[in-house]
Protein backbone atom coordinates (compact mmCIF):
# COMPACT_ATOMS: atom_id res chain seq x y z
CA UNK A 1 0.00 0.00 0.00
CA UNK A 2 3.04 2.27 0.16
CA UNK A 3 2.74 3.32 -3.45
CA UNK A 4 -0.92 4.13 -2.85
CA UNK A 5 0.12 6.42 0.01
CA UNK A 6 2.76 8.11 -2.12
CA UNK A 7 0.43 8.57 -5.07
CA UNK A 8 -2.20 10.05 -2.79
CA UNK A 9 0.43 12.40 -1.42
CA UNK A 10 1.71 13.77 -4.71
CA UNK A 11 -1.65 13.79 -6.50
CA UNK A 12 -2.50 17.29 -5.30
CA UNK A 13 0.62 19.05 -6.52
CA UNK A 14 -0.25 22.40 -4.97
CA UNK A 15 -0.67 20.94 -1.49
CA UNK A 16 2.30 18.66 -1.87
CA UNK A 17 4.63 21.48 -2.87
CA UNK A 18 3.02 23.71 -0.25
CA UNK A 19 3.96 21.18 2.41
CA UNK A 20 7.48 20.80 1.05
CA UNK A 21 8.01 24.55 0.89
CA UNK A 22 6.61 25.15 4.36
CA UNK A 23 9.02 22.66 5.86
CA UNK A 24 11.89 23.70 3.60
CA UNK A 25 11.59 27.37 4.49
CA UNK A 26 11.05 26.68 8.18
CA UNK A 27 14.18 24.49 8.15
CA UNK A 28 16.11 27.09 6.19
CA UNK A 29 15.05 29.91 8.47
CA UNK A 30 15.94 27.90 11.57
CA UNK A 31 19.35 26.90 10.18
CA UNK A 32 20.00 30.40 8.93
CA UNK A 33 19.10 32.19 12.15
CA UNK A 34 20.75 29.71 14.48
CA UNK A 35 23.87 29.65 12.29
CA UNK A 36 24.12 33.43 12.21
CA UNK A 37 23.41 33.56 15.94
CA UNK A 38 26.20 31.12 16.65
CA UNK A 39 28.49 33.01 14.29
CA UNK A 40 27.75 36.35 15.96
CA UNK A 41 27.94 35.01 19.48
CA UNK A 42 31.28 33.40 18.73
CA UNK A 43 32.69 36.75 17.67
CA UNK A 44 33.07 38.25 21.16
CA UNK A 45 35.55 35.48 21.88
CA UNK A 46 37.35 35.72 18.53
CA UNK A 47 40.45 37.51 19.79
CA UNK A 48 40.63 35.23 22.81
CA UNK A 49 40.39 32.04 20.81
CA UNK A 50 42.87 33.32 18.23
CA UNK A 51 45.58 33.37 20.89
CA UNK A 52 46.65 29.76 20.90
CA UNK A 53 50.06 30.10 22.62
CA UNK A 54 48.82 30.95 26.10
CA UNK A 55 46.32 29.11 28.26
CA UNK A 56 45.72 31.71 30.94
CA UNK A 57 44.43 35.24 30.75
CA UNK A 58 45.12 37.46 33.76
CA UNK A 59 43.23 40.75 34.11
CA UNK A 60 41.93 43.35 36.51
CA UNK A 61 39.32 41.85 38.84
CA UNK A 62 36.69 44.23 37.39
CA UNK A 63 37.30 43.22 33.79
CA UNK A 64 34.37 41.07 32.70
CA UNK A 65 35.28 40.40 29.09
CA UNK A 66 37.91 41.40 26.58
CA UNK A 67 35.87 44.20 25.02
CA UNK A 68 36.16 46.58 27.97
CA UNK A 69 39.41 46.40 29.82
CA UNK A 70 40.70 48.19 32.88
CA UNK A 71 44.48 48.24 32.45
CA UNK A 72 46.85 46.49 34.83
CA UNK A 73 49.96 48.08 36.26
CA UNK A 74 53.22 47.11 34.58
CA UNK A 75 54.53 45.31 37.65
CA UNK A 76 51.53 42.98 37.65
CA UNK A 77 53.33 41.11 34.88
CA UNK A 78 56.20 40.33 37.25
CA UNK A 79 53.82 39.35 40.04
CA UNK A 80 52.22 36.79 37.74
CA UNK A 81 55.60 35.51 36.64
CA UNK A 82 56.49 34.96 40.28
CA UNK A 83 53.59 32.63 40.96
CA UNK A 84 54.63 29.00 41.26
CA UNK A 85 53.32 26.86 38.44
CA UNK A 86 53.59 29.66 35.89
CA UNK A 87 56.05 28.68 33.22
CA UNK A 88 56.01 32.04 31.52
CA UNK A 89 53.91 35.20 31.37
CA UNK A 90 53.90 37.93 28.77
CA UNK A 91 52.06 41.24 28.33
CA UNK A 92 49.22 41.81 25.89
CA UNK A 93 47.61 45.06 24.91
CA UNK A 94 44.12 45.08 23.52
CA UNK A 95 42.47 48.33 22.66
CA UNK A 96 41.08 50.39 19.86
CA UNK A 97 42.60 53.16 17.79
CA UNK A 98 41.81 55.04 14.62
CA UNK A 99 43.64 54.04 11.45
CA UNK A 100 43.70 56.16 8.33
CA UNK A 101 44.47 55.04 4.79
CA UNK A 102 46.50 57.19 2.36
CA UNK A 103 43.31 58.16 0.56
CA UNK A 104 41.88 59.58 3.79
CA UNK A 105 39.54 56.69 4.54
CA UNK A 106 39.65 55.92 8.25
CA UNK A 107 38.17 53.45 10.64
CA UNK A 108 38.37 52.37 14.24
CA UNK A 109 40.54 49.28 14.50
CA UNK A 110 41.17 46.68 17.17
CA UNK A 111 44.82 46.87 18.07
CA UNK A 112 46.55 43.91 19.63
CA UNK A 113 50.00 44.58 21.07
CA UNK A 114 51.86 41.29 21.48
CA UNK A 115 54.99 40.56 23.47
CA UNK A 116 58.02 41.99 21.68
CA UNK A 117 60.30 39.10 22.48
CA UNK A 118 58.13 36.03 22.09
CA UNK A 119 55.39 37.38 19.82
CA UNK A 120 52.90 35.38 21.92
CA UNK A 121 49.44 36.50 20.84
CA UNK A 122 50.42 37.12 17.23
CA UNK A 123 48.03 35.68 14.60
CA UNK A 124 48.74 32.11 13.62
CA UNK A 125 46.73 32.05 10.42
CA UNK A 126 48.78 34.15 8.04
CA UNK A 127 47.70 34.71 4.45
CA UNK A 128 50.63 36.91 3.43
CA UNK A 129 53.91 37.50 5.26
CA UNK A 130 55.17 36.16 8.56
CA UNK A 131 54.63 37.11 12.18
CA UNK A 132 58.38 37.61 12.52
CA UNK A 133 58.08 40.59 10.20
CA UNK A 134 56.48 42.30 13.20
CA UNK A 135 60.02 42.80 14.43
CA UNK A 136 60.49 45.50 11.75
CA UNK A 137 60.00 49.16 12.73
CA UNK A 138 56.35 50.41 12.57
CA UNK A 139 55.26 46.94 11.52
CA UNK A 140 51.73 45.66 11.86
CA UNK A 141 49.74 42.74 10.57
CA UNK A 142 46.24 43.49 9.39
CA UNK A 143 43.42 41.02 8.94
CA UNK A 144 42.07 40.29 5.47
CA UNK A 145 38.73 42.03 6.06
CA UNK A 146 40.54 45.16 7.23
CA UNK A 147 42.86 45.09 4.24
CA UNK A 148 39.83 44.80 1.92
CA UNK A 149 38.28 47.80 3.67
CA UNK A 150 41.31 50.07 3.46
CA UNK A 151 42.51 48.87 0.05
CA UNK A 152 39.44 47.67 -1.80
CA UNK A 153 40.00 45.78 -5.02
CA UNK A 154 43.74 45.55 -4.53
CA UNK A 155 45.61 42.25 -4.34
CA UNK A 156 46.75 41.07 -0.94
CA UNK A 157 50.31 42.31 -0.58
CA UNK A 158 52.62 43.72 2.06
CA UNK A 159 54.22 47.14 1.98
CA UNK A 160 51.07 49.24 2.21
CA UNK A 161 50.94 51.89 4.90
CA UNK A 162 48.29 53.26 7.22
CA UNK A 163 48.49 56.09 9.72
CA UNK A 164 47.65 55.83 13.41
CA UNK A 165 48.15 58.65 15.88
CA UNK A 166 50.16 60.53 13.26
CA UNK A 167 52.51 57.61 12.93
CA UNK A 168 53.23 55.38 10.01
CA UNK A 169 51.93 51.82 10.20
CA UNK A 170 53.68 49.49 7.79
CA UNK A 171 51.66 46.48 6.75
CA UNK A 172 54.05 43.52 6.89
CA UNK A 173 51.52 40.74 6.84
CA UNK A 174 47.90 39.86 6.27
CA UNK A 175 46.20 37.48 8.67
CA UNK A 176 43.01 35.48 8.62
CA UNK A 177 42.01 36.65 12.09
CA UNK A 178 38.55 35.66 13.30
CA UNK A 179 35.92 38.32 12.82
CA UNK A 180 35.50 40.51 15.91
CA UNK A 181 32.04 41.32 17.22
CA UNK A 182 32.04 44.88 15.85
CA UNK A 183 33.51 43.84 12.46
CA UNK A 184 36.39 46.28 13.01
CA UNK A 185 39.71 45.59 11.27
CA UNK A 186 42.19 43.77 13.52
CA UNK A 187 45.79 44.95 13.66
CA UNK A 188 48.56 43.10 15.45
CA UNK A 189 51.73 44.88 16.38
CA UNK A 190 54.43 44.65 19.01
CA UNK A 191 53.49 45.66 22.56
CA UNK A 192 56.12 48.38 22.66
CA UNK A 193 54.87 49.82 19.41
CA UNK A 194 51.18 49.78 20.33
CA UNK A 195 51.83 52.69 22.68
CA UNK A 196 52.81 54.84 19.76
CA UNK A 197 49.85 53.79 17.69
CA UNK A 198 47.15 54.52 20.25
CA UNK A 199 48.56 57.60 21.88
CA UNK A 200 49.45 58.26 25.43
CA UNK A 201 47.70 56.02 27.95
CA UNK A 202 48.85 55.82 31.51
CA UNK A 203 48.73 52.05 31.61
CA UNK A 204 48.98 49.88 28.54
CA UNK A 205 48.92 46.42 30.06
CA UNK A 206 45.48 45.02 29.23
CA UNK A 207 46.21 41.40 30.00
CA UNK A 208 48.96 39.14 31.09
CA UNK A 209 49.05 35.95 29.07
CA UNK A 210 50.53 33.00 30.91
CA UNK A 211 51.33 29.36 30.40
CA UNK A 212 51.25 26.78 33.18
CA UNK A 213 54.36 24.76 33.90
CA UNK A 214 54.31 21.23 32.49
CA UNK A 215 52.20 18.88 34.61
CA UNK A 216 50.41 21.64 36.51
CA UNK A 217 46.68 21.84 35.77
CA UNK A 218 45.75 25.15 34.24
CA UNK A 219 42.87 25.67 36.68
CA UNK A 220 45.26 25.23 39.60
CA UNK A 221 47.56 27.87 38.19
CA UNK A 222 44.60 30.24 37.77
CA UNK A 223 43.68 29.75 41.42
CA UNK A 224 47.28 30.33 42.49
CA UNK A 225 47.53 33.55 40.46
CA UNK A 226 44.28 34.85 41.91
CA UNK A 227 45.39 33.97 45.42
CA UNK A 228 48.84 35.48 45.05
CA UNK A 229 48.00 38.66 43.12
CA UNK A 230 44.36 39.45 43.72
CA UNK A 231 43.96 39.66 39.96
CA UNK A 232 41.43 37.68 37.93
CA UNK A 233 42.81 34.68 36.08
CA UNK A 234 40.78 32.69 33.60
CA UNK A 235 41.56 29.85 31.25
CA UNK A 236 41.13 30.71 27.56
CA UNK A 237 38.00 28.62 27.46
CA UNK A 238 36.52 30.22 30.56
CA UNK A 239 37.33 33.70 29.31
CA UNK A 240 35.76 33.07 25.92
CA UNK A 241 32.59 31.87 27.69
CA UNK A 242 32.73 35.02 29.85
CA UNK A 243 32.70 37.11 26.68
CA UNK A 244 29.87 35.01 25.22
CA UNK A 245 27.80 35.33 28.37
CA UNK A 246 28.41 39.07 28.59
CA UNK A 247 26.95 39.65 25.16
CA UNK A 248 24.17 37.19 25.84
CA UNK A 249 23.13 39.10 28.95
CA UNK A 250 23.80 42.63 27.87
CA UNK A 251 22.60 42.79 24.29
CA UNK A 252 19.25 42.17 22.58
CA UNK A 253 20.83 39.66 20.24
CA UNK A 254 19.58 36.46 21.86
CA UNK A 255 16.09 37.88 22.27
CA UNK A 256 15.91 38.97 18.65
CA UNK A 257 17.28 35.74 17.27
CA UNK A 258 15.21 33.77 19.73
CA UNK A 259 12.06 35.48 18.49
CA UNK A 260 12.97 34.77 14.87
CA UNK A 261 13.72 31.14 15.65
CA UNK A 262 10.45 30.80 17.56
CA UNK A 263 8.52 32.43 14.71
CA UNK A 264 10.15 30.06 12.22
CA UNK A 265 9.31 27.18 14.49
CA UNK A 266 5.70 28.22 15.04
CA UNK A 267 5.03 29.21 11.44
CA UNK A 268 6.70 26.04 10.18
CA UNK A 269 4.80 23.88 12.62
CA UNK A 270 1.45 25.55 12.06
CA UNK A 271 1.67 25.82 8.28
CA UNK A 272 3.19 22.41 7.64
CA UNK A 273 1.17 20.73 10.37
CA UNK A 274 -2.11 22.28 9.36
CA UNK A 275 -1.56 21.67 5.65
CA UNK A 276 -0.76 18.04 6.31
CA UNK A 277 -3.74 17.72 8.60
CA UNK A 278 -6.04 19.29 6.00
CA UNK A 279 -4.54 16.99 3.39
CA UNK A 280 -5.54 14.00 5.53
CA UNK A 281 -8.99 15.40 6.26
CA UNK A 282 -9.62 15.87 2.56
CA UNK A 283 -8.66 12.25 2.00
CA UNK A 284 -10.75 11.03 4.91
CA UNK A 285 -13.40 9.47 2.70
CA UNK A 286 -10.72 7.61 0.78
CA UNK A 287 -9.27 6.35 4.03
CA UNK A 288 -12.80 5.37 5.06
CA UNK A 289 -13.19 3.41 1.82
CA UNK A 290 -9.86 1.70 2.44
CA UNK A 291 -10.95 0.79 5.97
CA UNK A 292 -14.25 -0.57 4.67
CA UNK A 293 -12.49 -2.59 1.98
CA UNK A 294 -10.29 -4.18 4.62
CA UNK A 295 -7.15 -2.11 5.03
CA UNK A 296 -6.10 -2.41 8.66
CA UNK A 297 -5.62 0.58 10.95
CA UNK A 298 -1.99 -0.38 11.29
CA UNK A 299 -1.53 -0.20 7.54
CA UNK A 300 -3.28 3.15 7.37
CA UNK A 301 -1.07 4.52 10.15
CA UNK A 302 1.91 3.29 8.15
CA UNK A 303 0.60 5.08 5.06
CA UNK A 304 0.15 8.38 6.92
CA UNK A 305 3.56 8.11 8.58
CA UNK A 306 5.16 7.36 5.22
CA UNK A 307 3.51 10.42 3.72
CA UNK A 308 4.69 12.53 6.66
CA UNK A 309 8.24 11.21 6.46
CA UNK A 310 8.45 11.84 2.72
CA UNK A 311 7.16 15.38 3.14
CA UNK A 312 9.39 16.04 6.14
CA UNK A 313 12.47 14.46 4.59
CA UNK A 314 12.08 16.24 1.27
CA UNK A 315 11.31 19.59 2.90
CA UNK A 316 14.25 19.21 5.28
CA UNK A 317 16.60 18.28 2.43
CA UNK A 318 15.54 21.34 0.45
CA UNK A 319 15.84 23.53 3.53
CA UNK A 320 19.34 22.30 4.34
CA UNK A 321 20.30 22.67 0.68
CA UNK A 322 19.20 26.30 0.75
CA UNK A 323 20.99 26.81 4.06
CA UNK A 324 24.19 25.25 2.71
CA UNK A 325 24.02 27.49 -0.36
CA UNK A 326 23.47 30.52 1.87
CA UNK A 327 26.30 29.68 4.24
CA UNK A 328 28.77 28.90 1.48
CA UNK A 329 27.86 32.15 -0.28
CA UNK A 330 28.17 34.34 2.79
CA UNK A 331 30.93 32.56 4.69
CA UNK A 332 33.61 34.79 3.21
CA UNK A 333 31.51 37.92 2.87
CA UNK A 334 32.91 40.57 5.21
CA UNK A 335 29.99 41.38 7.48
CA UNK A 336 28.84 37.76 7.80
CA UNK A 337 32.21 36.03 7.77
CA UNK A 338 32.58 33.33 10.33
CA UNK A 339 28.95 32.16 10.22
CA UNK A 340 28.76 28.43 10.66
CA UNK A 341 26.23 25.65 10.27
CA UNK A 342 27.35 23.03 12.78
CA UNK A 343 26.13 19.48 12.30
CA UNK A 344 24.53 19.69 15.73
CA UNK A 345 22.27 22.45 14.44
CA UNK A 346 21.37 20.40 11.37
CA UNK A 347 20.62 17.41 13.57
CA UNK A 348 18.54 19.58 15.89
CA UNK A 349 16.52 20.95 12.98
CA UNK A 350 16.00 17.41 11.71
CA UNK A 351 14.59 16.66 15.16
CA UNK A 352 12.33 19.70 14.96
CA UNK A 353 11.06 18.67 11.50
CA UNK A 354 10.50 15.17 12.81
CA UNK A 355 8.54 16.65 15.69
CA UNK A 356 6.46 18.86 13.37
CA UNK A 357 5.52 16.07 10.98
CA UNK A 358 5.10 13.72 13.92
CA UNK A 359 2.55 16.01 15.59
CA UNK A 360 0.76 16.57 12.27
CA UNK A 361 0.73 12.81 11.66
CA UNK A 362 -0.62 12.07 15.11
CA UNK A 363 -3.45 14.54 14.63
CA UNK A 364 -4.21 13.04 11.23
CA UNK A 365 -3.92 9.47 12.46
CA UNK A 366 -6.29 10.23 15.32
CA UNK A 367 -8.90 11.48 12.87
CA UNK A 368 -8.52 8.44 10.66
CA UNK A 369 -8.59 5.97 13.53
CA UNK A 370 -11.81 7.37 14.98
CA UNK A 371 -13.31 7.52 11.50
CA UNK A 372 -16.36 5.29 11.25
CA UNK A 373 -15.87 3.34 8.02
CA UNK A 374 -19.64 3.48 7.53
CA UNK A 375 -19.03 7.07 6.45
CA UNK A 376 -18.45 5.64 2.98
CA UNK A 377 -22.17 4.87 2.69
CA UNK A 378 -23.11 8.47 3.29
CA UNK A 379 -23.65 10.57 0.21
Amino acid sequence: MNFVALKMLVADRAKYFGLIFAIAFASFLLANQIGIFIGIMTRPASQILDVVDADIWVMDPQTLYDGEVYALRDYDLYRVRSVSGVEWAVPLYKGTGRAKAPDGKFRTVILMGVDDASLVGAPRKMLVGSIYDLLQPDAAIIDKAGYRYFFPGEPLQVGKTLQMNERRVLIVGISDASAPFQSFPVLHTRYSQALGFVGRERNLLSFVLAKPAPGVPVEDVCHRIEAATGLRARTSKEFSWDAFRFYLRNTGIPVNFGITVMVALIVGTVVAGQTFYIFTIENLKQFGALKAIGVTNRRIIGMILLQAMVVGGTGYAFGMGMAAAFFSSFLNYGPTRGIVLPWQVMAGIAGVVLFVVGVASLMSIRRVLVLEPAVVFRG
Partner: protein
Amino acid sequence: MIADGMAVFSRDVTKVFGHGDTQVHALRGIDLDIRLGELTMLVGPSGSGKTTLLSVITGLLDATSGELVVLGQRPAMLSGEDLILFRRKNLGFVFQQYNLIPALTAAENVAVPLLAGGVKRQQAVARGKELLATLSMAHRAHALPSELSGGEQQRVALARALIHEPKLIVCDEPTSALDGRTGHAVMELLSATAVRPDRALIIVTHDARIFDFADRIAHMDDGRIVHLEENRKNVVPANRLIPAPATLLSAESSSSSFGMIGG
Protein backbone atom coordinates in the same frame (compact mmCIF):
# COMPACT_ATOMS: atom_id res chain seq x y z
CA MET B 1 -25.48 -27.91 7.20
CA ILE B 2 -28.17 -25.34 7.51
CA ALA B 3 -25.67 -22.58 6.90
CA ASP B 4 -25.09 -23.92 3.42
CA GLY B 5 -26.39 -21.46 0.91
CA MET B 6 -27.01 -18.82 3.52
CA ALA B 7 -25.20 -15.50 3.18
CA VAL B 8 -26.99 -13.37 5.76
CA PHE B 9 -29.19 -14.44 8.62
CA SER B 10 -30.74 -11.70 10.70
CA ARG B 11 -33.21 -11.98 13.56
CA ASP B 12 -34.62 -9.05 15.47
CA VAL B 13 -31.63 -6.88 14.68
CA THR B 14 -31.85 -3.37 16.05
CA LYS B 15 -29.61 -0.36 15.80
CA VAL B 16 -29.99 2.64 18.06
CA PHE B 17 -27.93 5.81 17.69
CA GLY B 18 -27.49 8.25 20.56
CA HIS B 19 -28.73 8.18 24.14
CA GLY B 20 -31.69 9.42 26.12
CA ASP B 21 -33.79 12.05 24.42
CA THR B 22 -31.58 12.07 21.35
CA GLN B 23 -31.96 8.35 20.66
CA VAL B 24 -32.69 7.39 17.08
CA HIS B 25 -33.97 3.88 16.35
CA ALA B 26 -32.48 3.29 12.92
CA LEU B 27 -33.33 -0.44 12.80
CA ARG B 28 -36.28 -1.92 14.68
CA GLY B 29 -36.11 -5.68 14.68
CA ILE B 30 -34.91 -6.74 11.26
CA ASP B 31 -35.61 -10.33 10.24
CA LEU B 32 -34.00 -11.06 6.91
CA ASP B 33 -32.40 -14.02 5.21
CA ILE B 34 -30.26 -13.62 2.15
CA ARG B 35 -29.13 -16.69 0.28
CA LEU B 36 -26.10 -17.21 -1.86
CA GLY B 37 -26.95 -16.88 -5.52
CA GLU B 38 -29.54 -14.18 -4.83
CA LEU B 39 -29.68 -10.55 -5.76
CA THR B 40 -31.48 -8.81 -2.93
CA MET B 41 -32.51 -5.21 -3.03
CA LEU B 42 -33.18 -3.03 0.00
CA VAL B 43 -35.54 -0.28 -0.99
CA GLY B 44 -37.38 2.43 0.84
CA PRO B 45 -37.52 6.14 1.45
CA SER B 46 -34.60 8.11 2.83
CA GLY B 47 -34.12 7.45 6.53
CA SER B 48 -35.86 4.08 6.35
CA GLY B 49 -32.71 2.30 7.55
CA LYS B 50 -31.44 0.73 4.31
CA THR B 51 -27.90 2.05 4.56
CA THR B 52 -27.75 1.38 8.29
CA LEU B 53 -28.78 -2.22 7.65
CA LEU B 54 -26.10 -2.49 4.97
CA SER B 55 -23.51 -1.05 7.38
CA VAL B 56 -24.55 -3.51 10.09
CA ILE B 57 -24.47 -6.50 7.71
CA THR B 58 -20.98 -5.54 6.54
CA GLY B 59 -19.72 -5.01 10.07
CA LEU B 60 -19.08 -1.31 9.54
CA LEU B 61 -21.55 -0.64 12.35
CA ASP B 62 -22.36 -2.84 15.33
CA ALA B 63 -25.94 -3.95 15.83
CA THR B 64 -27.40 -2.79 19.13
CA SER B 65 -29.19 -6.08 19.66
CA GLY B 66 -30.40 -9.16 17.81
CA GLU B 67 -28.84 -12.09 16.05
CA LEU B 68 -26.79 -11.50 12.92
CA VAL B 69 -24.80 -14.11 11.04
CA VAL B 70 -22.96 -13.16 7.87
CA LEU B 71 -21.30 -15.90 5.83
CA GLY B 72 -21.21 -18.07 8.92
CA GLN B 73 -19.68 -15.37 11.09
CA ARG B 74 -21.17 -13.27 13.83
CA PRO B 75 -19.63 -9.83 13.19
CA ALA B 76 -20.33 -8.84 16.80
CA MET B 77 -18.07 -11.65 17.99
CA LEU B 78 -15.09 -10.65 15.88
CA SER B 79 -12.36 -8.40 17.21
CA GLY B 80 -11.58 -5.22 15.29
CA GLU B 81 -8.67 -6.69 13.35
CA ASP B 82 -10.48 -9.97 12.63
CA LEU B 83 -13.50 -8.05 11.41
CA ILE B 84 -11.32 -6.08 9.01
CA LEU B 85 -9.75 -9.28 7.73
CA PHE B 86 -13.20 -10.83 7.40
CA ARG B 87 -14.38 -7.89 5.31
CA ARG B 88 -11.25 -7.91 3.20
CA LYS B 89 -11.64 -11.58 2.42
CA ASN B 90 -15.37 -11.96 2.03
CA LEU B 91 -16.97 -8.66 1.15
CA GLY B 92 -16.95 -6.52 -1.95
CA PHE B 93 -18.18 -2.93 -1.89
CA VAL B 94 -19.62 -0.71 -4.58
CA PHE B 95 -20.19 2.71 -3.06
CA GLN B 96 -22.71 5.26 -4.17
CA GLN B 97 -20.01 7.77 -5.03
CA TYR B 98 -17.65 4.99 -6.11
CA ASN B 99 -14.97 6.26 -3.68
CA LEU B 100 -12.22 5.55 -6.15
CA ILE B 101 -8.85 6.95 -5.14
CA PRO B 102 -8.33 9.92 -7.48
CA ALA B 103 -4.55 9.50 -7.56
CA LEU B 104 -4.67 5.90 -8.78
CA THR B 105 -5.37 4.66 -12.29
CA ALA B 106 -8.40 2.50 -12.97
CA ALA B 107 -6.33 -0.69 -12.83
CA GLU B 108 -4.63 0.39 -9.59
CA ASN B 109 -7.99 1.21 -8.02
CA VAL B 110 -9.26 -2.21 -8.94
CA ALA B 111 -6.15 -3.75 -7.40
CA VAL B 112 -6.60 -2.10 -3.98
CA PRO B 113 -8.30 -5.08 -2.24
CA LEU B 114 -5.48 -7.36 -3.40
CA LEU B 115 -2.86 -4.83 -2.27
CA ALA B 116 -4.58 -4.65 1.10
CA GLY B 117 -4.25 -8.43 1.27
CA GLY B 118 -0.51 -8.23 0.68
CA VAL B 119 -0.40 -9.15 -3.02
CA LYS B 120 2.56 -7.58 -4.82
CA ARG B 121 1.80 -4.41 -6.73
CA GLN B 122 2.67 -5.69 -10.22
CA GLN B 123 0.68 -8.87 -9.75
CA ALA B 124 -2.31 -7.05 -8.30
CA VAL B 125 -2.40 -4.39 -11.01
CA ALA B 126 -2.04 -7.03 -13.73
CA ARG B 127 -5.03 -8.86 -12.26
CA GLY B 128 -6.87 -5.53 -12.15
CA LYS B 129 -6.21 -5.02 -15.85
CA GLU B 130 -7.46 -8.51 -16.66
CA LEU B 131 -10.66 -7.89 -14.77
CA LEU B 132 -11.18 -4.52 -16.43
CA ALA B 133 -10.76 -6.27 -19.76
CA THR B 134 -13.63 -8.61 -18.92
CA LEU B 135 -15.73 -5.51 -18.23
CA SER B 136 -14.73 -4.02 -21.62
CA MET B 137 -12.55 -1.46 -19.88
CA ALA B 138 -9.11 -2.60 -20.99
CA HIS B 139 -8.54 0.60 -22.95
CA ARG B 140 -9.24 2.70 -19.83
CA ALA B 141 -6.98 0.77 -17.45
CA HIS B 142 -4.47 3.60 -17.19
CA ALA B 143 -7.01 6.40 -16.94
CA LEU B 144 -7.48 8.31 -13.70
CA PRO B 145 -10.98 8.38 -12.18
CA SER B 146 -11.33 12.03 -13.18
CA GLU B 147 -10.89 10.97 -16.80
CA LEU B 148 -13.67 8.38 -16.65
CA SER B 149 -17.39 8.80 -17.21
CA GLY B 150 -19.85 7.90 -14.47
CA GLY B 151 -20.58 4.53 -16.06
CA GLU B 152 -16.89 3.78 -16.43
CA GLN B 153 -16.22 4.72 -12.82
CA GLN B 154 -19.04 2.42 -11.78
CA ARG B 155 -17.47 -0.43 -13.74
CA VAL B 156 -14.11 0.23 -12.09
CA ALA B 157 -15.83 0.20 -8.70
CA LEU B 158 -17.52 -3.07 -9.64
CA ALA B 159 -14.23 -4.58 -10.72
CA ARG B 160 -12.73 -3.50 -7.38
CA ALA B 161 -15.57 -5.25 -5.59
CA LEU B 162 -15.05 -8.44 -7.58
CA ILE B 163 -11.28 -8.75 -7.81
CA HIS B 164 -10.76 -10.73 -4.62
CA GLU B 165 -13.68 -13.11 -5.30
CA PRO B 166 -15.81 -12.15 -2.30
CA LYS B 167 -18.83 -14.13 -1.20
CA LEU B 168 -20.99 -11.11 -0.54
CA ILE B 169 -21.13 -7.95 -2.59
CA VAL B 170 -22.90 -4.87 -1.32
CA CYS B 171 -23.82 -1.99 -3.55
CA ASP B 172 -25.04 1.36 -2.30
CA GLU B 173 -27.22 3.15 -4.85
CA PRO B 174 -25.17 1.87 -7.78
CA THR B 175 -27.34 3.57 -10.40
CA SER B 176 -28.38 6.75 -8.64
CA ALA B 177 -25.81 8.90 -10.43
CA LEU B 178 -26.39 7.32 -13.84
CA ASP B 179 -28.90 7.93 -16.58
CA GLY B 180 -31.47 5.22 -17.26
CA ARG B 181 -29.62 3.53 -20.08
CA THR B 182 -26.25 3.48 -18.30
CA GLY B 183 -27.93 2.37 -15.10
CA HIS B 184 -29.56 -0.50 -16.93
CA ALA B 185 -26.24 -1.46 -18.50
CA VAL B 186 -24.54 -1.39 -15.10
CA MET B 187 -27.24 -3.63 -13.64
CA GLU B 188 -26.90 -6.07 -16.52
CA LEU B 189 -23.19 -6.13 -15.89
CA LEU B 190 -23.73 -6.63 -12.16
CA SER B 191 -26.16 -9.47 -12.76
CA ALA B 192 -23.83 -11.08 -15.26
CA THR B 193 -20.63 -10.79 -13.28
CA ALA B 194 -21.50 -10.53 -9.62
CA VAL B 195 -24.34 -13.00 -9.21
CA ARG B 196 -23.09 -16.55 -8.91
CA PRO B 197 -24.37 -19.55 -7.02
CA ASP B 198 -21.70 -19.08 -4.35
CA ARG B 199 -22.16 -15.35 -3.96
CA ALA B 200 -24.88 -13.02 -2.74
CA LEU B 201 -25.48 -9.51 -3.89
CA ILE B 202 -27.22 -6.83 -1.85
CA ILE B 203 -28.19 -3.58 -3.46
CA VAL B 204 -29.54 -0.57 -1.66
CA THR B 205 -31.48 1.55 -4.10
CA HIS B 206 -34.21 4.08 -4.68
CA ASP B 207 -34.20 3.42 -8.38
CA ALA B 208 -37.42 1.61 -9.32
CA ARG B 209 -36.14 1.17 -12.88
CA ILE B 210 -33.80 -1.58 -11.74
CA PHE B 211 -36.21 -3.53 -9.50
CA ASP B 212 -36.68 -6.15 -12.22
CA PHE B 213 -33.12 -7.33 -11.71
CA ALA B 214 -33.84 -8.38 -8.12
CA ASP B 215 -34.58 -11.88 -6.90
CA ARG B 216 -35.96 -10.43 -3.69
CA ILE B 217 -36.85 -6.95 -2.61
CA ALA B 218 -37.05 -5.91 1.02
CA HIS B 219 -39.13 -2.79 1.36
CA MET B 220 -38.08 -0.80 4.40
CA ASP B 221 -39.68 2.01 6.31
CA ASP B 222 -38.94 3.49 9.70
CA GLY B 223 -36.26 0.91 10.45
CA ARG B 224 -38.42 -2.09 9.63
CA ILE B 225 -38.88 -4.41 6.69
CA VAL B 226 -42.48 -3.73 5.89
CA HIS B 227 -42.80 -5.95 2.87
CA LEU B 228 -40.67 -8.70 1.39
CA GLU B 229 -41.14 -9.52 -2.26
CA GLU B 230 -39.70 -12.96 -2.83
CA ASN B 231 -39.17 -15.18 -5.79
CA ARG B 232 -39.27 -12.34 -8.28
CA LYS B 233 -37.10 -14.25 -10.73
CA ASN B 234 -37.94 -17.70 -9.42
CA VAL B 235 -34.38 -18.21 -8.23
CA VAL B 236 -35.25 -18.74 -4.60
CA PRO B 237 -37.95 -21.13 -3.38
CA ALA B 238 -40.89 -19.18 -2.06
CA ASN B 239 -40.58 -20.49 1.47
CA ARG B 240 -40.51 -18.35 4.53
CA LEU B 241 -37.62 -17.31 6.67
CA ILE B 242 -35.19 -20.02 7.61
CA PRO B 243 -35.04 -21.73 11.03
CA ALA B 244 -34.07 -20.16 14.30
CA PRO B 245 -30.48 -19.27 15.23
CA ALA B 246 -30.01 -22.12 17.70
CA THR B 247 -30.56 -24.60 14.92
CA LEU B 248 -28.56 -22.58 12.47
CA LEU B 249 -25.52 -22.35 14.68
CA SER B 250 -25.61 -25.87 16.02
CA ALA B 251 -22.57 -26.97 14.09
CA GLU B 252 -20.35 -24.04 14.91
CA SER B 253 -16.76 -25.04 14.40
CA SER B 254 -14.23 -24.38 17.09
CA SER B 255 -11.29 -24.79 14.75
CA SER B 256 -11.79 -21.63 12.77
CA SER B 257 -10.10 -18.46 13.83
CA PHE B 258 -13.35 -16.66 13.07
CA GLY B 259 -15.59 -19.27 14.71
CA MET B 260 -16.93 -20.38 11.35
CA ILE B 261 -20.26 -22.09 11.28
CA GLY B 262 -19.74 -25.62 10.14
CA GLY B 263 -20.66 -26.72 6.71
